[in-house]
């Protein structure tokens, strides 16, 4: 079962598949983590991945370049974040309800619009995507070279995102403020932190990051758009945030865990055609649940997450 790990070619293949499957999770988890750290529960990650994917397809199709796709994906992600922020921060609607509403909206809207905008629906598209970028010298290292240094641009962006989120949250003044508004917005407000503006910024930035996960799916993996192609990744990302105890570096590892598990089950599917593939396909979801259950006991979310701030509340 594990003998492929000994063969360099197969190992390289396995590792890079695992990394690729982790990328959408990483984008979504980092986006969700930024939102939750600022005290806003973003359960809509699933929908934002989908919006990102759809935006990427629209941009790449109509502008003809992957960069255009990226631009539209970012735009759609930011808009979904703005929607979430207006409803959840300013109008103080229950953030879980909004999140679910955004997910349902994204599913219906993108399904229909992909049929309207793309000839023969999004499934038959052959979009132009990003190709791999090999980093000179480093990509020649055996096994690790092809895995880490001969990837698509968005893979590097995802890895940089993790570093950036970590540095911003823990090494900068604004990061201190973000963590504070997620724990105790009233205290932060009293200390002079602009709670509303900062939460808006975090939600919009976080949502945009999540949409990059969708853009990655379309622009470097499948080059087409299909209905509901986020397939629960947003929820696995939510599980990764919890599993990573709201620490970017740990959440990143959790995403890798889920991604590699996915790669592993794909390999099992391929090697064991006699077993129904669904048995393996269900594994990543099951493992996410088990991971959540196993580690939930010690994890504490930011204290104010999900609770809209109202300065004049009495």
């Amino acid at each position, binding site marked *: 079962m594990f003998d492929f790990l000994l063969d360099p070619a197969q190992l390289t293949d396995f590792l890079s598949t695992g990394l690729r499957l982790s990328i959408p999770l990483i984008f979504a988890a980092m986006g969700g983590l930024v939102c939750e750290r600022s005290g806003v529960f973003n359960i809509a990650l699933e929908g934002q991945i989908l919006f990102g994917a759809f935006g990427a397809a629209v941009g790449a199709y109509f502008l003809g370049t992957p960069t255009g796709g990226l631009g539209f994906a970012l735009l759609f992600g930011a808009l979904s974040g703005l929607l979430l922020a207006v409803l959840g921060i300013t109008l103080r*609607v229950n953030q879980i309800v909004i999140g679910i509403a955004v997910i349902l909206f994204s599913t219906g*809207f993108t399904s*229909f619009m992909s049929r309207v905008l793309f000839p023969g629906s999004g499934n038959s598209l052959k979009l132009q995507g990003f190709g791999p970028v090999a980093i000179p010298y480093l990509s020649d290292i055996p096994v690790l070279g092809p895995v880490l240094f001969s990837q698509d641009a968005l893979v590097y962006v995802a890895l940089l995102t993790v570093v950036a989120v970590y540095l911003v949250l823990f090494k900068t003044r604004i990061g201190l403020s973000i963590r504070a508004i997620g724990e105790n917005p009233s205290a932060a407000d009293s200390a002079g932190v602009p709670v509303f503006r900062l939460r808006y910024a975090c939600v919009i930035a976080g949502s945009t990051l999540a949409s990059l996960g969708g853009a990655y799916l379309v622009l470097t993996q499948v080059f087409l758009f299909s209905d509901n192609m986020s397939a629960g990744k947003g929820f696995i990302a*939510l599980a990764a945030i919890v599993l990573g105890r709201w620490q970017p570096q740990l959440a990143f590892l959790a995403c890798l865990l889920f991604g590699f598990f996915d790669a592993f089950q794909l390999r099992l599917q391929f090697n064991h055609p006699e077993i129904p593939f669904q048995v393996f396909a*269900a594994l990543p*979801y099951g493992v*996410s649940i088990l991971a959540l259950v196993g580690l939930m006991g010690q994890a504490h979310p930011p204290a104010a997450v999900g609770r809209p701030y109202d300065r004049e509340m009495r």
Partner: protein
Amino acid sequence: MSVVGQPSVKAQTPSGAEPRAGRVAQSLIKFAFMLKTVWAVLAALILGAFLVQLAGGRPVAAYSALFEGAFADYYGISSTLVRMSPLLLASLAVIIPLRAGLFNIGAEGQIYIGALLSTLVALYLPEVLPSWIHVIACIGAGALGGALWGLIPAALKAYRGTNEIITSLLLSYVAVYTVGAVLHAWLMEPGAPYPYSREIPDALVLPTFLSETEAHIGVLIAVAAALVIAVIFRQTTLGLSIQTVGHNPHAAVYAGLDVKRLTLSSFALGGAMAGLAGAFEVLGLKYRLFDHFSPGYGMQGIIVAFLAALSPLGSIVAAFFLAGLQVGAGAMQRTTGIDTTMVEALQGMIVLFVAIGLAFRYHPERWSRRVAAWQKPTQGE
């Protein structure tokens, strides 16, 4: 006992002396707030019209085809009723736990496990029982399957504190794949072009209540279930207990309620409703267990629940309406060429606008002050 020198610091609402025009204005405003859901649906329909236009269709034609197909004739209505059954049950699966403050967004999975258990009982329980008992056993198995699947996230929530939103949804994927795997491995009819099971015995098919249609009695059972749930919430200690947990878990503990048990029972009851939906799809409509048989009833149940403002009775109306949209979508596509997914977009916009509507609440005091302020200048003249 009297309060010594109790200073009256409470709000002084404008007294009843306000003029009649003011009272009328205020009741109109209140009424407008009560129709919030209607406004949300209208807003979605208007935006939907733009989408139709964008798709190169004529909105009026599309909508009339849609609503005629769903509500205009005997067959349309019967199809709508058939579609309403799973939507209504799925919405109950969302509403019951949500009254206890728990989000069940995994009704889809509960539907699949319900359908699976129901099918197994239909196909493998020896046919020695009178058929009506066998049918009841199939229905019961469906409810049981849904309840058990619902108990998983509930138990994880109650005993481990695991977020039920994430687990219930992830469990849906596991359920769908489980049904697929069981079909592939054992249940699949040999030579079938698509994974589906053998047909269930004729004796186990649910009777219909409208002649020459597919309107099976599962529809009636679903409506009855909604009525029962409404009574539970209005009249029983169980309903009040669940509601207290939903309002304030700390106060519930103080009241001596067993919060863990209520978490489990509300989720199990909700899951049972979803399981029924799965059983009826097999016993009343398809007569087989199909892979991927649900077009997302579980998620659509959430839309129905919000549209009904979490009222079980309101769910009957909301489910009927949403079912009509889905049934009419086919007619719309046939006559105007607008793709059926237009209705999915419409549903998405409906739920979004309903969510936006939650931000606007009617505050009697605030409005009576505003109305009074509007009237002041005119009174001076």
